Each structure stands twice: as C-alpha cells, then as structure tokens.
C-alpha cells in the first residue's frame, strides 16, 4: 500500500526518500526531538540499572548504622542523595538495584514474548489457512484473560517466584500482541510486488520470510516489543503492590520498593512515619520509564508509518 502512495507522490518526494527502509526511518526519527529524548532517557536508565553492581557494590540491604541517618531526607552529606529509610538503607542504592532487577524482568520477558510472537505470528501470516485460524483463535483466547487477574493468580500458584518462572508467565501471556501485529503486517506485505516476485522466482518460504517479510515488518515488531517493556513493568508493580511476587529483601524491584513504601509510607497507611522520599524515588523512576516507553512507541510508530506522521 505504501508503494502505491509513493508512486502517486510528486517526483521531488521520490528524490527526497533516498536510502533504505532503516535510513528513511532514522531520518524521520531525527525530526522528532521528543522521541529521541525519550530514547536517550530510557537507554540511560537501562545502562545505569545494568551497571548497578559496579555503581553500588554494597548492594541493597546495607545499612547506615548511625542513628542520625535513619529516615533522613535527601542530602548531599554522607552521600545519601535520595535520603534513607527508617533503618538507614540508602534509597538511591535501593532504587538503583530495583531498576536493575525490574529491567532484567522486563527485558527477558519482552525478548522471549517477542520471539514467541514472531514464530507464531510469522507462521500464521506466512501459511494462512487452518494454521492461521488456530493461532489467531488462541490469541483471542489469551487476550480474553485480563493481565492483572491472571498474573496475580499465576504469581500466587508459582510461589516462590523466580526470574525464570516470571519470564515464563510474561512470555506465555504477552506473545499475543507481537503475534497479532506481525501477522497483520505480513498479510499486508504478502500482496506487495517484491514478495510476489520473490515467490515467482521460486524462493523458499524461509527465504521469503527472513529476507523479505521480516525486515519489512521489523518496525512493527519493535513497536510491539517496546510496548511490552512498559506493560511488564506496570504488571509487576501492580502485582507486587498487592503482595504477590518477591519481597525487596531478596530481590528489590521498582514495584516492590514502591509497594512496600506506599503500603506503609503514604496517606492513611503511613504507620512507620516514612518520609515522602522513600516512595517518591522509585515512583518517579517507574513513571519515567513508562512515559519514555509510551513516547518511543508513538514516535517509532509515526516514523515507520509516514502517512500517519501528521499527528506528531
């Protein structure tokens, strides 16, 4: 369809659209400063979280035993930049490790969900027929499970929850979104001249899929997988707010740090007299990740589908 639009557009439009698919997408992205900023912020957060062991080798449960540093607001002294909690644990260190483990869960879950989605969506789109019908009905079925309800039940029945189990649950639930998006894109691409030409030349299904369909559908997959990152972070945080998942003592995540701080440190729950900084720090990092992921998703979508670009 996009090919048809390009042939209709005036010649100067064709001349301007030099370069391959990714070069064009990159150029369109460069014209969206907000998306670029979101990418920089998210990449910065991911790198910082990934380097937690190097930045804060003392790990998340280390205490500052001096009583004056208990429940202390953010300060430059003693390097408690984000303050400390009621037993003298540094909030910055805890948030850093929380980011580390949240990022681990989100990246692993999104990666495996995307892989499963590519396989299922690719097979359904490429072969159609009964295979397509079966896969898509299965997608409908999984989509009818509301995320939070299913995750809470799964986390409860799988306790004690490990990284592998959590990744498995996220993969089995979230692959459908990638599969649905990829299948729709492949069905559209199947009618394109270059795909039909490759088919007429006798290219194998595998060659058509990996050389022609997947590279042109890559953007769709990336957009869907980016959205998964945000969803995993959100689902994990909500489940942990209800007390399902892991405790921050063993494995801090942004979700359980926030949950433990909010169930004891905010509004009518504030029974420990925790300061605002205990929940504000993980909350801000969590919200920042989600905003960045949403902005990147929208921005990539605009850059990949230039006809819908005007909304930017």
């Amino acid at each position, binding site marked *: 369809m996009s090919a048809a639009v390009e042939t209709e557009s005036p010649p100067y439009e064709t001349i301007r659209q030099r370069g391959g698919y990714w070069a064009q997408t990159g150029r369109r992205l460069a014209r969206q400063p907000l998306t670029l900023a979101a990418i920089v912020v998210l990449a910065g957060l991911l790198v910082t979280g990934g380097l937690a062991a190097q930045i804060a080798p003392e790990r998340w449960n280390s205490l500052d035993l001096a009583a004056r540093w208990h429940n202390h607001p953010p300060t430059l002294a003693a390097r408690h930049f984000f303050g400390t909690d009621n037993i003298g644990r540094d909030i910055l260190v805890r948030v850093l490790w929380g980011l580390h483990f949240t990022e681990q869960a989100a990246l692993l879950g999104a990666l495996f969900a995307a892989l499963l989605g590519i396989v299922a969506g690719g097979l359904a789109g490429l072969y159609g027929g009964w295979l397509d019908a079966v896969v898509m009905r299965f997608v409908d*079925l999984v989509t009818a499970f509301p995320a939070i*309800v299913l995750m809470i039940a799964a986390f409860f029945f799988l306790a004690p929850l490990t990284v592998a189990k959590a990744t498995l649950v996220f993969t089995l639930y979230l692959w459908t979104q990638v599969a649905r998006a990829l299948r729709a894109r492949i069905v559209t691409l199947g009618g394109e001249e270059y795909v039909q030409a490759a088919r007429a030349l006798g290219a194998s299904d595998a060659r058509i899929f990996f050389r022609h369909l997947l590279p042109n559908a890559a953007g769709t997959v990336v957009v869907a997988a980016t959205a998964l990152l945000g969803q995993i972070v959100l689902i994990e945080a909500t489940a942990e*707010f209800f*007390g399902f998942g892991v405790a921050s003592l063993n494995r801090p995540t942004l979700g359980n740090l926030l949950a433990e701080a909010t169930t004891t440190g905010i509004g009518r729950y504030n029974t420990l007299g925790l300061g605002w900084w205990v929940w504000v720090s993980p909350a801000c990092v969590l919200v920042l990740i989600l905003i960045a992921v949403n902005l990147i998703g929208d921005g990539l979508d605009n850059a990949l589908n230039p006809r819908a670009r*005007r*909304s930017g």
Partner: protein
Amino acid sequence: MSLTAFVLRRVALAAAVLAVFSSLTFLFFAAKTQPLASHPLLPAYWDWVRGLFTGSSYHSLIGSGIDGFVPPSLWARVVPALGRTAALVGAALVLVVVFSLLVGLAAARWRGAAPDLILRTGTYVAWAVPPFLLGLLVQQVATTLSDSHGLGPFPIAGWPGSCPAAIGINSGTITPCPGAGHGATFALNVLRYITLPGLTLALGFIGLHGRYLRSALVEALDAPFITTARAKGLSERRVLVRHALRASLATFMGVMLSDFGAVFGAALAVDWVFQLQGLGTVFIRLFPTEGFAPIDTYLLQIMFMLTACFVLAFSLLGELATRWFDPRVRAEQT
C-alpha cells in the same frame, strides 16, 4: 448480516471462549488446590458448572459429608461486589467519554500551541502513573486539602453503609457509620463515594483515549472535506465538532470501548485502595497471605469468568459502536 445475527454469532463465540477458558483455568489453577486436588477432575468441573446455576459453592464440596451443613450460596459474595464494581466502572466510563472528548477536541483545536502541549504532557503522565499509585496520591491530596475523611462531601474510602477499616483515617476516632439510605438518598450516597475512585480510574484512560482522539482529529482536519467545510465559511468550532469529530467518532468510540476491558485490571487496584469492597477486594482476599488455608476455588473460577466476560462484552460493544457511528461499516455488513 443483520444486527441480531451479528450479535448472536459473537455471543456464541464468546460462550465458546468462556468454555475453553474456564476449563483451562480449572486445569491450571483450581485443580492445584485443596480440596479439588484430591477429587476426580471431570466431576469436580461439572459440579462447579452446576454450581453456577444452583448457587452451590465450594463449601458444598468440603461439607458434603457433614450432617445439617448448609453451604452459603456461591453468589452471596459475588453479587454485591459485582454491583459496586459495576458502579465504579460505569462512573469511569462516563468520565472517560466526556473528558477524552474535551481533551481531544481542545488539543486538536489549538494544535501545536500551549494548550495542546500542556494537555499532551498531561495525557502522557496520566497514562504512565500506575492506578494504585494514582489512588494513593488522590487520597493524599484529598486529606491534605481537606480533612482525613475526604474532600468535602467526597469520602476518600469506603462505600455507603460500610466504613473503611480503622487504619490511620479513623484511628482513635471511630465514628459510627452513617446509614446507606434508601432510594434517591442511597443513589446520592453512592455518587458521593464513587467520585474520587471513579476519577482515579478514569484519569489514566482519559490520558490514553484523549491522545488517540487528538491524533484522529488532527488527521481528519487535514482531509479535503474539512477544506470544503472551511471554504463554505463555517465557524472553526462547527468545522471541528460537526465535521472532524463526526468523522473520528467511529474510530474513537470503537477503540475506546474495545479496550475498556483493560479497565478491569485497574479497577481492581482502585477498588482495593479505596476500600470499596468490590470484585477487586473479593479477588485479592481469595488468596491467603500465608499458611495453607484452602482457596475458595469455585469463587476463583467465577472471578476468572467475570473478568473474561467483562473483556468480551466490551470488545463486542466496541464493534457495535463502530457499526453505529460508521455508516460505511453499517452498509458493508447489512
């Protein structure tokens, strides 16, 4: 295909999905817990299905050997909670439709200018804050602005006739709970109690759908028929509302309603934070926090079913809305 045939077909499909869905959840979750783990699976499943109609609960399975044991009805806990959740979701639906329209129209009207930038920033932030955190923040703001009971006439927790648990808010001064009232008084009380949680639940989705509507409107405003409308000398407001909005409404309502099933997950958290004792509370209370207390597996199954029904019903509503608002779809299918 006529409308009736279309709806019937979708309902039949939904029933099939529910049947497969219930057997899967039964196999993966319910059958793992006592007492079902020690019962043959198929009869237990059949017993549960029968229980949906007779109201016999999981207690009947445990207590079937005890003389004079009258098991409580399965629906006794579900129906009141369902009513409360329905009120919450209904309030949120009204708020989402009204405010998404306002936000989308305002942002599209002043595209690129200050109101647009402020509204778009707001929509991104609103959608990114998890509902449970938003609920706590709303409560915090309400208690800061007003007193610990709520923001003026709007209480920060509880439901007419059932006051919140005595943590913080009521500590020391446990006041007798005002009655729920009858008829119009009750309806008014429900509205008072539902306002803050409804707003909390709606806020994120206003952020999402206000943004979608803005994109749809902006795209519509570039279409040739808008140029025609402007050339006819129509006022900008009339162009926006009568022409651009009319064209975007089918997509907006369709997507909004289809995705509204997602509200259920958020409603769970809001319900819990505001202590509405709705389905969310029933669901969370199902799981014992520690020890080996048995789970009411029949109720767990019902919760799965209800949430799935919710998602399926809104997805059908979304398609119906698209048909209703888009004459092209209507013409294709009739």
